[in-house]
């Protein structure tokens, strides 16, 4: 026992271990090596958390308190001291109550050792005679080795550790975390607006008016960006078509395999998300596929003037306009306006129903429910989604809209209900689309929006908490709120990024031939899931 633990139980890299193996080809498990394998395999247990990004680092820390509990270290002590064995509880003690706990030691170690040592001499000679042929990693060959033979050279040779490790860097990580910050701030602003309306400190018309004004401005900006991008795309396609023409020639019958548009997000933002897309090619491919699908659709809509646009009005809000033609764009704008008007009047009609829908539920339940729904919104939001995603994170959006619906039942008048619901659609349905485009368009816009959101959320919370005195807004507490929010945002983003980078060294992903293979299929049409 002591000799074992004094040895360095250290998981050395595979290459080094294999080199060591080759030095001693005929010995199966020289002692130190066996302990090393044991340590390695027990380490793999910790690595089971690797899917979650948590695990243990490759080098076993020898000073950790649980270090000594690997399989090799749990050896029974009484081998050397037979007297210890007497007090051990064994199965037969359950029914042999006559002599507590054990009558005699189960083995006589000296005799065992002698016989075993004697046999080992004989055995090793006979083994060396038997093992002339090389062991092969095959099942159909009748091998002259025992079934539990472990070949030092080939055992676990295909094991890979962290094959796709992408080391994070601090600033890109901070930059990426702003997406989460934005969503959290949006939710906070929504809650602040609700509280304002609920306490009748803000007029609901003002809230929805400003919201709608913001949405209009956002839509105009977005429309302009999309127009610009389409022009770029046309140029790019003209340029790339020439180079791709040769490659597509043999596969004419498979229109979907053609990747016409390049993935626009990968090129511009040099962040970890983009790096992740590169690391997982099928994700990026799928994305580019959807982009190419829309561009193919745009080709179709060029031919048959966008008649289909009028039919699906509601989803048109989320969909990017596809045709670069002036006429198509105009049509699309009309469609958007039409659907906006439709939603407006539908909500107006529905708000009396929404008002009384969950009225009978007690307020406590409503607060708890809306808290969880908004939490779901934050946790399930599609933070990695590029601009091409059509319906990002439907669970998240639905949860937020439901939160607004249940909250609306606490409001006394139909007008307030209408305002809150419309505002929630703007905040949770449309604003994310705009934010995604802004981030895609320019990093400057993204930072501006983030800053404004943090200031807005912090100020709003400050104002709400400050309380109102004689119709005067508590500006001081508002400013304090902004300050606190900025500090919290900076600390949280920096701290979490730093923490994540610190945790990454524990990542221990084990891959090998036992993993399910990832099929590579060129016609992506058949591969929807997984």
């Amino acid at each position, binding site marked *: 026992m002591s000799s074992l633990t004094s040895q360095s139980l250290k998981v050395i890299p595979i290459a080094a271990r294999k080199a060591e193996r080759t030095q001693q080809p005929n010995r199966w498990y020289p002692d130190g090596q066996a302990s090393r394998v044991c340590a390695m395999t*027990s380490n793999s247990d910790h690595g089971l958390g690797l899917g979650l990004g948590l695990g243990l680092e490759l080098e076993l820390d020898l000073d950790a308190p649980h270090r000594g509990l690997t399989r090799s270290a749990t050896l029974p002590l009484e081998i050397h001291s037979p007297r210890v064995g007497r007090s051990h509880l064994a199965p037969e003690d359950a029914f042999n109550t006559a002599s507590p706990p054990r009558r005699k030691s*189960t083995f006589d170690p000296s005799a065992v050792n002698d016989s*075993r040592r004697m046999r080992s001499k004989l055995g090793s000679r006979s083994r060396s005679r038997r093992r002339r042929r090389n062991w092969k990693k095959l099942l159909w060959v009748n091998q002259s080795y025992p079934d539990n033979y472990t070949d030092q050279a080939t055992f676990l040779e295909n094991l890979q550790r962290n094959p796709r490790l992408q080391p994070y860097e601090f600033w890109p990580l901070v930059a990426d975390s702003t997406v989460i910050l934005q969503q959290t701030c949006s939710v906070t602003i929504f809650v602040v607006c609700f509280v304002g309306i609920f306490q009748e400190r803000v007029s609901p018309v003002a809230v929805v008016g400003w919201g709608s004004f913001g949405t209009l401005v956002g839509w105009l900006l977005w429309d302009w960006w999309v127009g610009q991008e389409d022009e770029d795309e046309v140029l790019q396609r003209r340029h790339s078509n020439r180079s791709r023409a040769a490659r597509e020639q043999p596969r004419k019958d498979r229109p979907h395999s053609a990747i016409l548009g390049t993935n626009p997000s990968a090129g511009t933002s040099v962040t970890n998300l983009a790096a992740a897309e590169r690391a997982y090619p099928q994700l990026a491919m799928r994305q580019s596929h959807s982009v190419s699908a829309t561009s193919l659709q745009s080709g179709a809509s060029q031919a048959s003037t966008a008649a289909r646009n009028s039919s699906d009005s509601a989803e048109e809000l989320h969909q990017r306009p596809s045709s670069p033609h002036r006429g198509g764009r105009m049509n699309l704008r009309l469609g958007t306006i039409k659907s906006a008007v439709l939603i407006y009047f539908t909500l107006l009609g529905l708000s009396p129903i929404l008002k009384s829908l969950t009225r009978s539920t007690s307020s406590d339940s409503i607060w708890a429910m809306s808290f969880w729904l908004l939490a779901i919104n934050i946790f399930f939001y599609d933070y990695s989604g590029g601009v091409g995603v059509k319906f990002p994170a439907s669970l998240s959006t639905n949860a937020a809209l439901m939160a607004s619906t249940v909250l609306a039942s606490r409001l006394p008048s139909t007008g307030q209900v209408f305002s809150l619901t419309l505002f929630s659609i703007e905040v949770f349905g449309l604003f994310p689309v705009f934010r995604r485009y802004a981030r895609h368009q320019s990093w400057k816009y993204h930072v501006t929006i983030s800053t404004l959101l943090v200031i807005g959320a912090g100020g709003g919370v400050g104002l709400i908490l400050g309380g109102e005195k004689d119709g005067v807004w508590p500006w001081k507490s508002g400013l304090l709120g902004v300050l606190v929010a900025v500090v919290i945002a900076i600390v949280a983003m920096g701290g979490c990024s730093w923490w994540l980078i610190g945790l990454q060294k524990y990542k221990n992903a084990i891959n090998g031939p*036992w993993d399910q293979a990832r099929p590579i299929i060129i016609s992506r049409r058949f591969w929807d899931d997984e």
Partner: protein
Amino acid sequence: MDSKPAQQLPSPPAKMPRRTYNIAMVSDFFFPQPGGVESHIYQLATKLVDRGHKVIIITHAYEDRKGIRWLTNGIKVFHVPFAVIYRSATFPTVFSFFPLFRNIILRERIEIVHGHASLSSLCQEAILHARTMGLRTVFTDHSLVGFADAASILTNKLLKFTLSDVDHVICVSHTCKENTVLRAALDPLMVSVIPNALVSANFKPLPRPEPGSLPFTQHPLPAHPLGPSDTLTIVVVSRLFYNKGTDLLTAAIPRILENHPNTRFVIAGSGPKAIDLEQMIEQNVLQDKVEMLGSIRHEKVRDVMVRGHIYLHPSLTEAFGTVIVEAASCGLYVVCTAVGGIPEVLPSHMTVFAKPEENDLVAATGRAIGALRANKVRTEKFHEQVKTMYSWTNVAKRTERVYRGIFGDISDDEFYGYDVGNEAHWSATRGRNFALIDRLKRYYGCGVWAGKLFCLCVVIDYLIFVLCEWIWPRKQIDFARDWPRKPPASDDDE
């Protein structure tokens, strides 16, 4: 107790009659449910009985199967009443099985408990209880599990719990062994590789027609030589799931048929991906070239297989892949993806390997078709060759060696091939004594929190054992009468 000193003696000389064992196979998966594990257990049990052992099988009760049944060869099957929760696996209630299990074990005088399939909670519980009762345990793993997703992390933790204290583990392929060693943190010498086998008499190719006996053939029999214009049939027998590579198949079929006009497909099996295949057939108008049979019974597999020349197996993960051995035994040239344990299973002259990629699969199938059309492959010899490679008799013999090894009937040197230099280390990894404190030490190493939890379970299990001994003393439990045993087979007969 009495077996313990015997274990330390040198192995008896060869003239003494071989010792036979009383073995209990425990698994959730057994007949009447069809499947690979089920038939493995049955075949292994039959062959072990042929070698003079006594085998009982413990599984859970099925709809119309309750109580005790006798199968051919005197195998006794206990269908114990436990609720099935998911895919015929019972609900894991760590301790509730113990009293019943103890009763069966004592009544049948069982010495070795052999569990099958890592997803079976019955098997895992049985191994725990058996160790508490002081029996030797063996576990056979039939599947490969990754390390990435949450479900496999949980499964692996449970497996580690069970296998922390097991005498020996059997895996069906070398890849499976590597996987299990990593999953359960085992000593590799504790893990044997014993492949699956097949009843080769059930997978015979069609009899070759005598050249003179057939004036003309109604349909081209799949016997060589194959003319350049003869139709060549590719058979696929597989459940149509994602992990069986049905997506690859769906993508590859139109391209293969495009490249090789005189080719037909016969697809047997059902599953959620069948709809994709049907869509593909309709889109490419291949109704007259691709025949889908739906799910077929295992007995019919051979009849489907002998209709073809090539067996295509596009699976994405496979521990052993019995079906490709069956196909080769039927005289089919095998095209398969080189994943999991598949590359170990068949010699290279029977198979064409492909990467799990659409292009490579199409190319490999093309190579196989070319080789068959050029009459380069002697598929008519496959059956005899496979027959010598895999047989259940051989599997039973090798499994018996494991039993003898853990019982000490063959010496540890011979069994583990271990150069005894360090007694302490030997005892740590392989000397699986039953003292509770040593068992607890093994379980404690499973993890910071899990280790303590597991130790708690083991202690409670021991207390339940003591309680059972007190309430139902073993003196009052009668022994069941044994089925007449066959004489123990000697080592030499094959």
